[in-house]
């Protein structure tokens, strides 16, 4: 269906992927310097936050499963930069980056990971269940595919109440084979719901490469089957992600219905802490991939507009914010056991 294709800017991973691409203003999607700095701050925050959390986990201060967002910063930030604060995001088991990009605060996120009373969910949720309604971060579902349904439902609520809000579902490439992926896209399509499905194709579903899971591993091409627009975007390039998301979000807001975005990126860390990565991918592949760093791409892209010292200042601020967040969690009391026995039916 040709009408199934919207006018999306869809730089293929191939052409945008090579080299830290040139800084033509257009590539900034017309973002002001302060927005650019904000984008950098968020990407840098995610990167450093994950490093810190991983450390505290290995030190035994955090327990439970841990899925790092490292390497996927440009997707989280590029997508959320295109959203209004009252738009909502649903997420997956790998959601720290999404939460931060949507504006959630480091302290309560960190405290939740640490299982402290001051965490966003009072310690009931943990790493895979962070929620901050105040920031429109309305739920992670580590049940693969679940985020798509929640966002579709949220979009239905917006549609029913004639609000011009948009819902975004972050999903992994592993979700594409799930029945709920199919059902979510189909429902959103026939009801023209204001939702954007962002599949972060980070190369792996645990040890699996997309091609092992689907014969047609061009995730974005699935959009056609549902009669909705689809686009592939270079997930290392925050501007490309931002531009594609913006177009999709605008279409959604104007009643144009859902879009399927595939953001190609790479999962820098193992599936989770303790994952036996070596069983399925060579160290060299990881190292090569990491050389194409979303932060470096950003730096070189905006080098002629924002000076290095300016970025350095932001980095310093972020470092202290993270240190603060860790202190906050560290100094927070563990939850009162009694609170486990409240809030259900």
């Amino acid at each position, binding site marked *: 269906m040709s009408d199934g294709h919207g006018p999306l800017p869809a730089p293929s991973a191939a052409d945008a992927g090579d080299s830290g691409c040139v800084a033509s203003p257009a590539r900034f999607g017309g973002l002001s310097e302060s927005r650019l700095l904000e984008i950098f701050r968020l990407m840098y925050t995610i990167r450093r936050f994950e490093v810190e959390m991983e450390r505290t986990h290995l030190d035994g201060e955090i327990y439970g499963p841990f899925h790092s967002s490292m390497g996927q910063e440009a997707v989280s930030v590029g997508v959320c930069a295109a959203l209004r604060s009252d738009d*909502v995001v*649903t997420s997956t088991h790998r959601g720290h980056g999404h939460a931060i990009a949507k504006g959630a605060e480091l302290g309560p996120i960190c405290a939740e990971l640490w299982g402290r009373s001051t*965490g*966003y*969910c*009072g*310690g*009931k*949720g943990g790493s895979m*269940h962070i*929620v*901050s*309604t105040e920031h429109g971060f*309305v*739920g992670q*579902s580590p*049940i693969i595919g*679940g985020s798509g*349904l*929640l*966002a*579709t*439902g*949220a*979009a*239905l*609520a*917006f549609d*029913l*109440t004639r609000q011009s809000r948009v*819902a975004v579902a972050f999903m992994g490439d592993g979700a594409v084979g799930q*029945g*709920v992926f199919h*059902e*979510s896209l*189909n*429902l959103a399509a*026939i*009801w023209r719901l204001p939702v954007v499905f962002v599949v972060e194709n980070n190369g792996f579903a645990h040890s699996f490469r997309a091609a092992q899971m689907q014969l047609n591993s061009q995730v974005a091409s699935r959009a056609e089957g549902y009669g909705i627009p689809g686009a592939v975007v270079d997930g290392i390039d925050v501007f490309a992600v931002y531009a594609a998301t913006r177009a999709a979000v605008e279409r959604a807001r104007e009643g144009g219905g859902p879009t399927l975005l595939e953001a190609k990126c790479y999962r820098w860390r193992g599936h989770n802490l303790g994952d036996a990565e070596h069983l399925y991918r060579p160290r060299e592949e990881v190292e090569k991939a990491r050389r194409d760093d979303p932060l470096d791409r950003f730096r070189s892209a905006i080098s002629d507009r924002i000076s290095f010292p300016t970025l350095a200042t932001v980095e310093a601020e972020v470092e202290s914010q993270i240190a603060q967040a860790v202190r906050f969690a560290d100094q927070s009391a563990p939850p009162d056991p009694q609170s486990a026995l409240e*809030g*259900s*039916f």
Partner: protein
Amino acid sequence: MREITYIEAVREAQAEALAADHRAFIMGQEIGEYGGVFRATQGLAERFGVHRVRDMPIAEQSMLGAGVGAAVMGMRPIVEVMFMDFIACGMDAIVNHAAKMRYMSGDQLRVPMVIRTQGGSGTHHGSQHSQTLESWFLHVPGLAVVMPSVPHDVKGLFQTSVALDHPVLFIEHRALYRTKGKVSDPVAPIPLGKGVIRRSGDDVTVAAIGKSVRQALTSARQLEEEGVSVEVIDLRTLVPMDVELVLRSLSRTHRLVVAHEAVERGGWAGELISRVVAEGFDELDAPPLRAGSKAFPIPFARELESAMIADERLITRRIQECLGMLEYSG
């Protein structure tokens, strides 16, 4: 007072919910202009518009999952699952999402969703369209489970269910749809967790729900002729469960039979009996007994179905066993 059928009550209850709360809407298959395969939504699409009475594709996961997402954003979805058996197709949305999100989120998210469905035997739909599965959901913290037996309760309990800030499983029985009952206008909301005594008696208490309440009343009438006085309690909701009412009744009758159409093995009667035994052991003059269906899939043919489904005959027999009039037949 007006007398209406059970299905009319379901229809009125939904109409009143949509009229009373602009956040309420209905999703399901064939519920729009078609009016529902059991006519539960007849006329509602015309009255409230197809955007609030939404026909769904055949996709239970998305129906229930989208309901959860909409509820989280402040809506009050009423989701109709055509046959209770199909809940198995959308179990994840109910169990892993609807029931847990409020708790997991530290009370940031609420899922005020009512899942309406109907189940049970008697229409010879066969193994995959006749199950009675409420017992699963007692075991899922975070869900309320409601099973009205009369039109009045349908209307009273539905109001409470839609208003509740937790997901509710609202279970009807196909075989009750044509039964009639009196309703006041309006019907006042009925709190969850409050059972009622449908018939008072002195010799034995039968605790039941839904269609089984009617069967228990039939048994009670039959046994009256044999001089047995049976008290019949309609629990009305399983979560919360009015154990206190049962215990109060036992303090007079000292004997208990728990009746449900659900398969006896692993059924909710075990929950009630465990509570009663733990909290009222000394009141019991005889072992509490269960009248539930035998542990087989529900077969198609009449003769086969009635051989395994719990009905008034079984309830009567269990009462007699509980009273020592007959040997316990397991």
